[in-house]
């Protein structure tokens, strides 16, 4: 099961290495890790997607919180969150295929950011399932290259009282 953890950390060299090292040492499985500065220049935010059951994730959260340079850790399990992944993908695009590929891009609300004789580079952002769906849709045409940021997430202001908040497709 995938859990999203959000950690606020000191913006200092070595902190990312420390977190990654802790995960490796304790054999926790990281699915993705995205980190960037916040509006406070002394702090960065890390969004980590961990694979594991509740007990494992509980240990992950506690071990993260134990690191001196980690300020706060939140587990988004069971919460209403907005989760986004951003991808740049280069698709084989001969001129005769161009219209159908561009139609596909529009359906996924993507943006063409580079175009050439052979390939088109598309930027798509959205929840993980949308990104995965777009990749599958592009496969028949031929994918040259792709890069993803990994999931970043923030909780919604109003938490709806549903049993399983797994549908983050908006």
């Amino acid at each position, binding site marked *: 099961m995938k859990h999203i953890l959000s950690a*606020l950390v*000191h913006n200092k060299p*070595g902190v990312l*290495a*420390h977190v990654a*090292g*802790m995960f490796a*040492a304790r054999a926790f499985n990281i699915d993705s890790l995205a980190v960037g500065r916040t509006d406070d220049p002394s702090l960065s935010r890390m969004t980590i997607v961990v694979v594991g059951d509740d*007990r494992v994730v*509980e*240990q992950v959260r*506690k*071990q993260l*919180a*134990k690191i*001196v*340079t*980690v*300020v*706060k850790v939140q587990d988004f399990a069971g919460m209403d969150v907005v989760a986004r992944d951003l991808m740049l993908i280069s698709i084989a695009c001969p001129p005769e295929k161009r219209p159908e590929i561009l139609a596909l891009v529009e359906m996924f609300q993507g943006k063409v950011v580079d175009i050439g004789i052979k390939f088109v580079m598309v930027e798509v952002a959205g929840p993980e399932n949308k990104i995965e769906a777009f990749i599958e849709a592009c496969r028949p045409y031929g994918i040259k290259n792709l890069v993803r940021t990994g999931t970043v997430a923030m909780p919604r202001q109003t938490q709806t009282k549903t049993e399983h908040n797994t549908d983050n497709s908006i």
Partner: protein
Amino acid sequence: MTTKTEQTAPAQTKPGSQIIVDTLLEQGVEVLFGYLGGVVLPLFDKLYDSPIRVIIPRHEQGGCHMADAYARSTGKVGVMIATSGPGATNLTTGLATAMMDSVPIVALTGQVRTDLIGNDAFQEADTTGITRPITKHNVIIKNPNDLAHTIREAFYIASTGRPGPVLIDIPVDMQVAQVPVTPPQPIELPGYRVREHGHARQISSAAEAINASQRPVLYVGGGVISGNASEPLRKLAKKANIPVTMTLMGLGAFDQNDPLSLDMLGMHGAAYANFAVQESDLLICVGARFDDRVTGKLKTFASHARIIHIDLDPSSIAKNVPVDIPVVGNARYVLADLLEQVEYRERKEWFERIAELKKRYPLRYDRNSKMIKPQYVIEELWHQTQGQAIITTGVGQHQMWTAQFYKFSRPRQFITSGGLGTMGFGLPAAIGAQIGNPGALVVDIDGDSSFNMTLTELSTAVMYELPIKICLINNGYMGMVRQWQELFYGRRYSCSSLKNPDFARLAEAFGAVGLSARKKEEVPAVIKAMLEEKKPCLADFYVDPEENVWPMVPTGKSLHEMDGLNLLEMA
């Protein structure tokens, strides 16, 4: 418009090295351990004029163990200085030892000039990278203005919450740079919060459970000692009438001479302690972590008991076993709060059962053997020291026999590497403990293989005239390895026997006193002579080479499925 004459006088500046020494003095450091090298020369130059006593080991690992034992035996923060490159890498075992046993150490390592970092410079190593997993926190100084503040933070982090080693890597140009002297800023570490007092409702639930229990056991560990919670523990055990068992790291937290003591539990713990835990209906864990050496097979550990877990570190709670009543807080405060709510219960049947177990499965050995039995040496030492000496050990069989046969009565008396199990810890630890406790009697009960690893530190003991005693349990083997090879590998003693030097003569060559005993009748006199020696003294005891530690919980078995019970059982 300001003119030259109106400019304010320049702020007082000092070189970084002086700032470091000043901050150490401000933190109350009276003695530190350190080994020189190129990039720490500026620092040592300032130490030369300071009132801080500097102890030089013969190897940085030894120095780190000395700082560690100094901290364990006094409760203060141990300080170790090493140079860059090999000096720092030589610290890794020492730091890992301190990390696993939660010991407060501040390690200062020199580093090459900031502009050379990452250049494969002479004696350069990625110290912060290498030590990251084995320190509670580490940092490299890139701005000399950060020196004082970082050192203060280091002492704070090392000594608060769950203690641990903190390393500061200081490039040599930072030591030489001129730094303006500024007043100390308050320590601000967002996200580093220590929860000292337990949650009131949790404590009430715990008290209720204790009062209702028929067969409770207090299972205490090193956290009681580092939390200075020994006195509240004693009061609680007495008031509520609960027997107390200790982990290796917890020995000394409760007086083993007290009838409530169940002594040590676990893989080589007393059988009566292990049975008591397995039969208990309430296990009150204080400052311990359900380590694999204690629990045996987790699924069957204390399977009839509800579990209360009192610990300062939230990540320890529910890590290995599900906990019914968790209480996060410092044992000292939590136990004091609990004390007010618990009531005395007679628990007659439970104590009768425990007395029966103690009578049936005592810790014992063959007293009629013609050979010197290692347990005999330790027991005799215990008698002759009235059980009052500070004891350090290496790792292995001799360590287990010490835990079994030297009964400890106060905290910070037993200094041993529990979590990492570092062979070679004994001798430098004895030195560190002696430095921290000048008038005390300090004895290193060591094994021949463990002693071989760091015996060079004999020079340190002689140089500083430290009257430590080394009681060498010499069986010519890596004892614990040999025991496993005997029990599980058909006596195939692969690489576990050693060609040892004549240790007594070796000690004399170092400038210490060397004694030896080869016959059983010689043991009491040799121990007496060793204890009376004013100089550092090593006594080499040739013991039965194939004696085993019993009882033993083999890996994968339950805590009550001990081997060797037939040898211990009194009919």
